[in-house]
């Protein structure tokens, strides 16, 4: 269903007129319009999220965790102390916790039902399921005005609290991924509470990038984790197949006990390590100002270290946990991580932590390509041709998430495009600058054998941003829909690709300097906080000095497609036929001009979405006419009488609008070359077909 409302709103048209004026002013910056800015001002903050003194964040969700891995039984037993401060605007009468691993407790969870809806997934075997079970939860301290002052509270302590499962999104009674714990007394804004939770969990065989295979463990979203309290209510979604996560910032102090000799990687830095008498080792990792904690362990990791240094940016220790079969690829992982730290650091703001851990996941662990604070999983193959984007692409992307997700902590349940889209756009920009050429790779024989196609160098604007995937899913969902409600099969094309495409369109429209300022301002203003889409739009309008609301209406609040086309181009000698003159001088004439060609151009808007575009007409002798078209009407005709014949015409000749799903129809030439092109490619295809015939003739 198309959303045409925006086309008829006067404010949108006013905004469009403002943009057109800015566009045609050859790069001149337009002064901000205060009235318009008021209209797009972001809503008031939902949290009192100012950083604590000496800290980067509000640090209102803090964890001390002690966890032990029982490898033989693939179990975790843990205890945690959660110290939570209410930074919302109203009292919290309960604490809401996420129990993500219950998404894989059985096939009745919302996560599993949604995955089934997308289709194509087999039913997991018995040993693949996992779960998390709270053994005991008790109030340790508070509520109290200051952390640690809870002892003075009159509330009973040490008594077990009763958790109740909730399904706020879909009412699924079988979903156990959100649990609410009623408190004996509300926690007022600014007050703190401490809870102690003991739990047991079975590590799944990897789902959603967390779990175990053999002796390889990647453990994420694994502990009872407090949701986010905003304004006067909890923002706590069930775990959905499409969505990621949302948490407040805090300090984590985690003791991880694993078999001796196993390598451990985790969020933060290792503070201590102690061997135990039972053949295990306890590793203590800690990190402030992060909103999650993940860890991994395996006896086979090979550890590499390198230091990132770049002028103007703080140094960072890069720690790589590499699979032995990927020996020799360490430089590629480090180079990609360093490129992300450098460019993101220069464009948006420096990476503030002392270390970053790159995890090269085990083959078929399913853990690859995921971000966690100060740690991420990349993903490579045994045969990974150089000058292709594996492992570079995924490494840049996940390292980049340290900025968009790690530091700017938007709600991924609802607005995943804010981090995934901004990050995909940035990743592709880094890849274009630092890793060229980037050739296409096709994989054969079960995907094991790569073949690099050096005839096909991938381009950032189209291939990198995912135009091809987006093309097929353009109208499947409106980005303004909460992400967890997206259709499971196409959310990636909307979340990642559409956002990257429209950001790149903005880059081409506004210029990189302006867009970089927009992103840097947004980053600076919202780092260690939880922005919403309106916050981004407000910054974009403010920094660019243009009201971009009409654009966001098209790309964010609508699922409409863009498709502009040249419908007709003719260029012929001017012919006059009929009567000329008046009265006695009226005469019938049939005349063809020897000196003047009439060029007629008709352009069309085939899609429902609109965007101001340029039109370029080239004439014999090389002369060009370029003019702007607001792109609003369904069609527009132009006519020129000139001494030269037209050669070609193009709509959006500089391809500013990267969301145009059909760019081939954007141009017409009067000297077409379709025949030689079609001959070339049909002949190449014929060789393949002949080879097919001969291959199967083997069986005759």
């Amino acid at each position: 269903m198309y959303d045409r409302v925006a086309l008829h709103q006067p404010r949108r048209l006013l905004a469009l007129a403002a943009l057109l004026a800015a566009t045609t002013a050859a790069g001149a910056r337009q002064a901000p319009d205060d009235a318009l800015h008021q209209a797009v001002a972001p809503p008031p903050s939902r949290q009192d999220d100012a950083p604590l003194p000496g800290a980067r964040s509000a640090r209102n969700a803090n964890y001390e965790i002690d966890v032990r891995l029982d490898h033989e039984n693939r179990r975790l037993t843990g205890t945690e102390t959660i110290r939570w401060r209410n930074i919302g605007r109203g009292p919290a009468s309960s604490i809401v916790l996420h129990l993500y691993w219950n998404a894989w407790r059985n096939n009745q969870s919302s996560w599993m039902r949604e995955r089934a809806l997308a289709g194509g997934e087999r039913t997991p075997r018995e040993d693949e399921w996992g779960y998390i079970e709270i053994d005991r939860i008790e109030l340790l301290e508070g509520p109290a005005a200051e952390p640690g002052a809870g002892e003075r509270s009159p509330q009973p302590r040490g008594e077990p609290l009763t958790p109740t499962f909730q399904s706020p999104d879909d009412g699924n009674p079988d979903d156990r991924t959100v649990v609410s714990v009623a408190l004996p007394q509300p926690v007022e804004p600014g007050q703190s509470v401490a809870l102690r939770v003991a739990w047991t969990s079975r590590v799944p065989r990897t789902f959603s990038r967390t779990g175990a295979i053999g002796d390889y463990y990647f453990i994420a979203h694994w502990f009872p984790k407090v949701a986010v309290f905003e304004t006067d209510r909890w923002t706590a979604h069930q775990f959905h197949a499409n969505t990621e996560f949302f948490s407040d910032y805090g300090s984590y102090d985690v003791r991880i006990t694993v078999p001796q000799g196993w390598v451990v990687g985790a969020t933060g830095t290792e503070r201590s390590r102690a061997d135990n008498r039972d053949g295990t080792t306890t590793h203590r990792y800690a990190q402030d100002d992060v909103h999650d904690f993940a860890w991994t362990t395996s006896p086979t990791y090979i550890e590499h270290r390198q230091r990132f240094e770049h002028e103007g940016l703080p140094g960072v220790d890069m720690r790589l946990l590499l699979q032995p079969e990927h020996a020799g690829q360490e430089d590629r992982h480090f180079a990609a991580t360093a490129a992300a730290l450098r460019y993101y650091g220069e464009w948006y703001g420096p990476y503030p932590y002392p270390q970053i851990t790159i995890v090269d996941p085990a083959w078929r662990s399913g853990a690859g390509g995921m971000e966690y604070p100060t740690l991420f999983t990349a993903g490579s193959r045994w045969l990974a041709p150089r000058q292709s984007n594996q492992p570079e692409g995924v490494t840049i992307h996940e390292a980049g998430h340290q900025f968009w997700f790690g530091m700017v902590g938007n709600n991924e349940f609802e607005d995943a495009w804010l981090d995934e889209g901004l990050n995909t756009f940035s990743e592709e920009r880094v890849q274009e600058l630092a890793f060229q050429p980037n050739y296409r790779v096709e994989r054969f024989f079960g995907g094991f054998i790569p073949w690099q196609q050096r005839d096909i160098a991938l381009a950032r604007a189209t291939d990198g941003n995912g135009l091809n995937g987006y093309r097929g899913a353009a109208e499947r969902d409106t980005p303004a829909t909460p992400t967890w409600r997206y259709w499971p099969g196409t959310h990636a094309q909307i979340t990642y690709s559409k956002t990257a495409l429209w950001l790149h369109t903005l880059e081409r429209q506004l210029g990189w300097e302006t867009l970089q300022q927009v992103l840097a301002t947004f980053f600076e203003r919202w780092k260690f906080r939880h922005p919403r889409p309106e916050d981004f739009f407000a910054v974009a309008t403010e920094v660019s000095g243009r009201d971009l609301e009409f654009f966001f209406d098209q790309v964010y609040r609508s699922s409409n497609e863009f498709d502009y086309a040249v419908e007709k181009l003719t260029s012929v000698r001017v012919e006059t036929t009929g009567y000329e003159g008046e009265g006695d001088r009226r005469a019938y004439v049939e005349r063809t001009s020897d000196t003047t060609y009439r060029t007629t151009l008709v352009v069309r808007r085939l899609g429902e979405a609109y965007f101001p575009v340029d039109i370029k007409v080239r004439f014999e002798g090389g002369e060009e006419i370029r003019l702007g078209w607001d792109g609003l009407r369904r069609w527009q005709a132009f006519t020129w009488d000139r001494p030269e014949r037209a050669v070609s015409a193009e709509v959006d000749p500089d391809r500013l609008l990267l969301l145009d799903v059909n760019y081939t129809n954007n141009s017409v030439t009067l000297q077409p070359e379709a025949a030689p092109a079609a001959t070339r490619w049909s002949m190449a295809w014929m060789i393949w077909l002949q080879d097919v015939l001969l291959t199967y003739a083997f069986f005759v």
Partner: protein
Amino acid sequence: MRSSYSDGLGRVRRAPWVVAGTYVATVLMAVPLALTLRGMMMEHLGASLAAGAAARGVNFDWWNEFLAQSAGLGQTFVPAILGFAAVLKNLSTVADAEALPTVIASAVVAHAVLSLFLAGGILDRLARNRVVGAAAFFSACGVYFFRFLRLGLVAGLVYWQLFTRVHPWLFDEVLADATRDITVERTAFVYRLGFYALFGAAVLAVNVVMDYAKIRAVVEDRRSMLGALAASLRFIRHHPGAAVGLYLANTLLFLAVVAAYAVAVPPATAPVWAIVGAGQLYILLRVIVRLQFAASQTALFQSRLAHAGYTAAPVPKWPDSPAVEAVSAAGPGATGASTP
């Protein structure tokens, strides 16, 4: 075995019209579809400026757009058809038992029927190892076509079972279970190679049996295809080393041709004549390799079993079977070979 291999090469060399005909058969099957695809491309490109870039090399943007907006035959114009990737794609499709798009599967079936029709004439010509003329060639095609069709049904049934039942069981169940907890990709690949070898051996075994069944049907003018199959099995049982060794030697020749194409395939920016020239040369060499399989296996069989005392048909009719010719050539008093 070595003499059969070189004998086979000689027989193929001395049958240029058979080589040309087999090559032309692939061209004739492919051209109509290529023309259809060309028309689809022409329509999609229209008078667009995108055609200019596509005429000179890869316009990947247009390619993706065409792929996204076309159906049927257009969906087969994937990037993997480019250069040597096309060869890998086809071998991989067979090895992984992937389904072909309907339109391509139809062409494959049509080509298979045509190949089945030509097989009798080709084997007859290669077995006689002399010029027989077009009329005799096509008469042999006609004589053996329905026999081979019956044999083809048996072969098709066996292959169908192999690819639709054995392959999924082997790869999707046994291999998947065997590698379920393997976290090292190259180890899993070694397993997969083993399963390819296992499945490949089964396919090749069926192929060798079918090859010798056809050869015996032609050389001995057999009418019962079940009898030909049994005879083929007997021959392979008595000469396993030679039969398998020859097959492997021919497979090496095939791999050499594939490797040569991998090295020589021109880039997509090359002139169209270079791309087509290299591609068609590769196709021609593949045709030769295919005929070499038939010729060398025929030579092997004739060198071991085609004895003069055997006559398949009571009253030989034109065209005579090679066995009858052998009897005729054996000496006076034998059944006279006749040529019109």
